[in-house]
């Protein structure tokens, strides 16, 4: 359970770290007719619209148009077909990219001047410059246009996630090269810290509805995928894991209970002769019952304490050794531990009650004959 809790928290943290307050936005066909426009209209959001968003909508912190094409990269006669992204200078923050030491991501002034500068992934760097080669300052070609490499993505787990093959240039250079005017796929927005992505969805839909004449309540007209949706899907995913863990926990409890019931039964069965003797020399039913029941109680409490101590020690041990990052540090839930302790203690008391009562009711003669 502790491992599961650690894994869930780690997953939640990782996914939220990637998603943050960011949200992917794309346009779709409208599903409602509006002011004489029939449904099925596809609004053509321009790159300029997206770039202007932080200025016109106070709730938007930053954007990136996510222009993307497959391009031929070449360097010293070696060619490589990879994805090129046209993004804003904010993209490095927005996508939480890490740049290897010595390099940098392009800045606003590079964008304004349409500087031919590029940031490449570690994998692309390795293809052209080898594992230990220096790519910074080198010029290479993107679809025949020369760009200077100013940064390489760090060989980082998070960068590897989906940025292995990419090259980033400014959206203006991209537009200059390919002549793009519209958002063909999707764009990224990051909301201000106090604005949820759910609120941002409403704001963006209303804004573009006013600009492109569609119903602001038409939820089909624009697509959004952001932290709120991720949160929703994560919570289902984590709920699934937690249900699975709970079922496992219950099965462990059930097996444990059977074991406990069996032990309690054996305690009485094994001691039939002793119980008979005790009754013969003067023990009353109540005294026998109390004796067996107290023993059960001691077994329950001592067993519970040993179990809890083992769990605590194992969890502490696992927290201090290096586990794969995706597993996360095991986290002992005291609530779960307390519930397990109480449930088992209760089961032990119930399973101890009946053998104790059976022992108390034993006929001393029959018990002595066993």
């Amino acid at each position, binding site marked *: 359970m502790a491992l599961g809790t650690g894994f869930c928290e780690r997953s939640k943290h990782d996914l939220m770290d990637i998603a943050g307050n960011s949200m992917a936005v794309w346009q779709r066909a409208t599903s409602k007719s509006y002011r004489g426009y029939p449904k099925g209209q596809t609004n053509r959001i321009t790159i300029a619209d997206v770039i202007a968003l932080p200025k016109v909508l106070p709730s938007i912190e930053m954007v990136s148009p996510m222009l993307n094409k497959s391009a031929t990269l070449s360097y010293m006669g070696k060619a490589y077909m990879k994805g090129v992204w046209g993004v804003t200078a904010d993209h490095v923050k927005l996508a939480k990219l890490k740049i290897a030491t010595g390099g940098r991501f392009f800045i606003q002034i590079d964008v304004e001047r349409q500087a031919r500068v590029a940031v490449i992934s570690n994998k692309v760097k390795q293809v052209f410059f080898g594992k230990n080669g220096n790519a910074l300052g080198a010029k290479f070609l993107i679809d025949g246009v020369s760009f200077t490499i100013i940064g390489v993505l760090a060989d980082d787990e998070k960068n590897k996630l989906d940025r292995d093959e990419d090259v980033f240039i400014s959206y203006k250079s991209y537009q200059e090269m390919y002549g793009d005017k519209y958002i063909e796929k999707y764009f990224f927005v990051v909301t201000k810290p106090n604005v949820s992505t759910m609120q941002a969805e409403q704001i963006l839909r209303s804004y573009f509805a006013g600009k492109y004449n569609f119903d602001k309540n038409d939820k089909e007209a624009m697509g959004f995928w952001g932290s709120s949706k991720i949160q929703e899907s994560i919570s289902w995913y984590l709920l699934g894991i937690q249900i699975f863990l709970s079922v496992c926990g219950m099965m462990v409890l059930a097996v444990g209970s059977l074991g406990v019931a069996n032990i309690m039964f054996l305690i009485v069965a094994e001691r039939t002769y002793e119980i008979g*003797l005790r009754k*013969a*020399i*003067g023990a*009353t039913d109540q005294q026998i019952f109390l004796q067996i029941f107290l023993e059960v109680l001691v077994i329950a409490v001592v067993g519970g304490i040993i179990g809890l101590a083992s769990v605590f020690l194992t969890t502490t041990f696992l927290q201090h050794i290096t586990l794969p990052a995706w597993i996360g540090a095991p986290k002992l839930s005291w609530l779960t531990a307390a519930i397990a302790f109480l449930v088992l203690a209760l089961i032990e008391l119930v399973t101890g009650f009946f053998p104790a009562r059976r022992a108390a009711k034993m006929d001393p*003669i029959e018990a002595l004959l066993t």
Partner: protein
Amino acid sequence: MNEVIAELHNIGKTYHTGKVNFEALRGINLKIERGEYIAILGPSGSGKSTLMQIIGCLSTPTVGSYFLAGKEVSKLSGDELAKIRNLYIGFVFQKFNLMPQMTAVDNVALPLVYRGIKTEERRKQAKDILRHIGLGQHFSHHANELSGGQQQRVAIARALVTNPEIILADEPTGNLDSKSGAEIINLFGEFNAKGKTVIIITHDVSMARHAKRIIEIQDGSISASR
């Protein structure tokens, strides 16, 4: 004439097994005086063990009445009988019936637990009795560290520790060699000489001869008393 300590009137005991009824005892009339040494003699299946169980309050009769120390005990509940056993009866069983996980002292002290006596006092009384019967060197020995004769002495000490009215011994030498058996018989003789009521249940005529009165049981009835 001494005071009557146990008196059985027309005692009968019938066991019901399914549709079959088995009459183990019928029409038993018996008076036992304080300080008597009695042997209840009979072959296997004669009803002598059933009679011992009734005298020892381990079982109640189907019919008749039983007065122990002046009190009618044949209709008492299980818990009341347990208290009576603890107060009036000291049992000695053929198989010794010691607790293997306990020391000799703890075994002997066990009946005192149910009198609510404190541990220290229990152990003191148990040691006194063990010393008295010659087991002063074996206080902390467990049952499996003692010979058969020593185990039976521990069992006798346990029967005596509560200072009961009656010592009830069921085939007490049945599991012993002749030398140890003779020592145990001598012990019973000593206790009786000191005024204890001793009842021995046996099928062994030679052992029964050590008693002052022999009651013979045959098919659930007293066939002779001499």
